[in-house]
């Protein structure tokens, strides 16, 4: 019951903020709604018992990435409104319609063909540690060590690339 309430409330918040993110005229508002959206998503994670992911969501997304967006938004304080120029043949409405159609179809599929795995296909894997964070950490440092390192390398490369890109040529 409480779970259902929490879910519906959070879902409503998530979708609402998402719509606001997309529709906001002012990029800064979009950013703000994005932050709120992410916070709601993090809350959803908490309800799903994924505290670690939730924390990471807040820390990385809300605290890091979106701040980056905000920076950029404020850096590119555009002289003219960015929406001024409108290129022909972009068919935004068609794209919108297609997105809606895909949503409807996928929803239909999801609803009518109960994609939910009935029971835990594989009984909860037994990890030597208990607690969400510990288990995730265990997985990260045992089974998924290589992907973990690869991800770290990716981040490093991305950082270097971003710095190189953003540096003023002089």
């Amino acid at each position, binding site marked *: 019951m409480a779970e259902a309430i929490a879910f519906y409330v959070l879902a409503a918040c998530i979708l609402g903020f998402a719509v606001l993110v997309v529709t906001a005229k002012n990029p*800064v508002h979009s950013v703000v709604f994005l932050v709120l959206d992410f916070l709601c998503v993090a809350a959803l994670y908490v309800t799903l018992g994924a505290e670690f992911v939730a*924390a990471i969501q*807040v820390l990385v997304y809300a605290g890091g990435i979106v701040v980056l967006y*905000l*920076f950029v938004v*404020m850096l590119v304080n555009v002289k003219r409104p960015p929406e001024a120029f409108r290129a022909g043949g972009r068919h935004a409405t068609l794209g919108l319609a297609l997105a809606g159609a895909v949503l409807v179809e996928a929803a239909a599929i999801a609803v009518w063909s109960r994609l939910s795995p009935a029971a835990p296909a594989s009984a909860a894997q037994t990890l030597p540690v208990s607690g969400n964070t510990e288990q995730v950490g265990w997985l990260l440092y045992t089974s998924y060590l290589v992907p973990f390192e690869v991800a770290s390398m990716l981040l490093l490369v991305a950082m270097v690339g971003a710095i190189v890109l953003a540096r003023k040529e002089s």
Partner: protein
Amino acid sequence: MVELVLIPLLKIIVVLNATLLGVTYMVLLERKVIAWAQSRLGPMRVGPYGVLQPVADAMKLMLKEDITPARADKWVFTLAPILSMVPALVVYAVIPFGDEVHLFGRRISLYITDINVGLLYVVSVTSVGVYGIILAGYSSNSKWPLLASLRASAQLISYEIAITLTLVSVVLMSGTLSMVGIVTSQASQGVWYAFIQPMAFVIFFIGGLAETNRAPFDLPEAEQELTGGFHTEYSGMRFALFFLAEYANMIVVSSVATTLFLGGWLRPFPNVEFLSFLGIVPGWCWFLLKSFIFLYLFIWVRATLPRYRYDQLMRLGWKVLIPLAIANLILTAIVKVALA
């Protein structure tokens, strides 16, 4: 029912009021201390020795006209103080003020909740706090607040990294993310992490100063150059909110520092037997004492040190603190593996 709703509610009310009260008198304390440091008297008019000064300030702030600048982004302008206030208060949810106490025949733990990602929670929430500043600077549609907010956000993000790294090294020592767990682990290990992680402690303290925009890192509100920083355009209650948020953050930082490095509610040298007579003093007193010492350090530093230049700030953050923190982290890991 009582267990599930009432007691946490009571705890929250108590903590919030205590915090706000503490914040108000923190302001008075700061003014007094700085006055004394500058051989002044400080506020003396309102009440004996100006003890009622905070009340007067509160009244003034609440009664003042709340101005919204023209062509400001109105509701962001409104949202900004909230965004900076809420995280500051939310953090208290995981701060363990003390051990369990027996009250009215109940065992009541002196903390609101103890989540197993407590430390991450703290970091995340504080990292969210930066939005208040940025949005405030942006929405007030004025050049000084914008610059201030940019500085502030950059500064916060930079020092957040260092702080997080120190926290990681502490977590390495404790083996848990739960605040209570950290304290208990210090008890079980019989030593404050300040002694076995002095580097982390120092870095955390400096980072805390930066996180809370305190001197010598108070560039976001450098009066001389930015006329008050990101909340230049604010007034009245919204300004009060920023103010409260800042001091609340100070308390948060000091509380976290106490929890992580000074053993929380533990008496000094918990593993020394002949000091066990100190045990008669309840743990929450010890906690408040340690936090007070931290707060006093904050004020002391502000009264003592001049302000950094912006590039110096960044150089310190990126080229000194972060490398030191990383080195400390690696060293800790090595030692830990070696001992284990």
